[in-house]
């Protein structure tokens, strides 16, 4: 799973590089617009170590933001799934708020919180929180009739049991969304750093962009892709192991 993710990324990355180089030589573009292979290799040797440090800084924010989003989405999702006025209000608010593009809201966050860790973390959370929340709400409000019927009929239905049944039955869907939102966490962090922060790989990409240094940007994107693929692959592998243990245990007799 992890190897597949890395392979898929490398294939796409080098196809894109190939496309850029083909465009450069076919259209006769200068090294200033699209650098040559030698310039790309030089940029990699010069910047890889520096960008790796920036990337690990971004990854730290992304991981923290992702973890906080999961906790928040689980808590708010459970509250929202209840048939109460508060639950209805949270559901309506969740659907409405998620329609706002976070990039449009980001400047307000930076004005209020400054360009430090808090802003990067908040934007990361906002980017990956809503898909998690909406999935949690959808899972918890959808009855699993063929399991719940017995407990309802015999007066054993408890809210905690209902939550457990619905989470368990939708484990595959939840794991897919949790793994998928890992890339969103990375996107959120980089977007935040790109918009206004003073650290991280997004900030480095912004600096390279101001210098019109495509070779440096390509090195940064390579590292972002590799590490995001690793993060995604690790989560997917962990998810598959959890599903195997809980949903499809071998043997049993």
């Amino acid at each position, binding site marked *: 799973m992890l190897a597949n993710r890395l392979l898929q990324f490398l294939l796409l990355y080098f196809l894109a590089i190939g496309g850029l180089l083909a465009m450069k030589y076919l259209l006769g573009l200068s090294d200033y617009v699209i650098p040559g292979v030698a310039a790309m290799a030089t940029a990699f040797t010069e910047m890889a170590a520096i960008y790796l440090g920036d990337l690990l800084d971004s990854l730290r924010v992304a991981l923290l933001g992702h973890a906080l989003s999961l906790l928040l989405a689980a808590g708010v999702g459970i509250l929202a799934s209840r048939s109460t006025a508060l639950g209805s209000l949270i559901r309506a608010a969740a659907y409405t708020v998620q329609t706002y593009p976070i990039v449009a809201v980001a400047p307000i966050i930076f004005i209020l919180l400054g360009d430090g860790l808090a802003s990067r973390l908040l934007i990361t959370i906002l980017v990956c929180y809503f898909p998690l929340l909406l999935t949690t709400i959808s899972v918890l409000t959808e009855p699993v009739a063929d*399991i719940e*019927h*017995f407990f309802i*009929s*015999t007066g054993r239905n408890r809210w905690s049991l209902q939550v*457990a049944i619905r989470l368990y039955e939708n484990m595959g869907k939840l794991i897919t969304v949790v793994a998928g939102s890992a890339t969103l966490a990375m996107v959120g962090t980089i977007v935040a750093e790109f918009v206004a922060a003073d650290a991280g790989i997004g900030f480095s990409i912004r600096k390279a962009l101001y210098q019109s240094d495509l070779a440096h940007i390509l090195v940064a994107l390579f590292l972002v892709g590799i590490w995001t693929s690793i993060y995604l692959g690790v989560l997917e592998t962990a998810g598959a192991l959890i599903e195997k243990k809980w949903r499809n*245990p071998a043997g*049993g*007799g």
Partner: protein
Amino acid sequence: MDEGERPRAAITIDNLHFSYPGAGRPLFANLSLHLPAGGFHALFGPSGIGKSTLARILAGLTACSGRRSTAGPVLYTYNTERLPGWLTIGEHLRQVAAAPAATTTLATLEDRFGIDHCLNRRFGQLSLGQQNRVNLIRYLLQDFQTLIMDESLANVDEGTRERIIITLKEHYPDRSFLYISHNVLEVARFCRQIILLREAAKEPQIVAIEGLDATAGHPVSQTRLERTVLEILHAG
């Protein structure tokens, strides 16, 4: 039949009217039904005629117009029900058999229903027939006066099915069972009363036929069985 002459009823329904939203014609119009108290009875009829809908109405799970009265708790179980997957069968059954009496019953049923060797497995690891049996057992451990079994043994082999029906009759002589099945031979042989549900256009929509109510000590003759089967088929 006059109200005063009726035998004691497990469930009575009078003047039932029911239509699915958007349906042009009612599924049930002015339907009355009297399920005798005690015994193993059947609700029989072709697919799509409304047996499950009627069963759910009898169990109080589907709202309808008309009068419904019951002699005690009514439970409804169907063949595609599942158990929570995080527990083994044994753990789940022990959890739902809270009363000490139910625990004793559980041991007997596990043996008679032939599931004692799969108690350490999860529900998803069982065959469909084993799943049917496990699901039925947990309902039998509950406090009920009437149990409606909607194709609850649909995936169980014939021999085991017969053993289960005989067990139900022996262990629960004072309870009522309403068994939904498409096996005309089975309902004719084992059921005391067969409630035949017909198309809404037919009058009456429900016909009650006396079954042979076979038990372990009282098998039925082939001639009587054939006669009852023909009666059911002609009435349909």
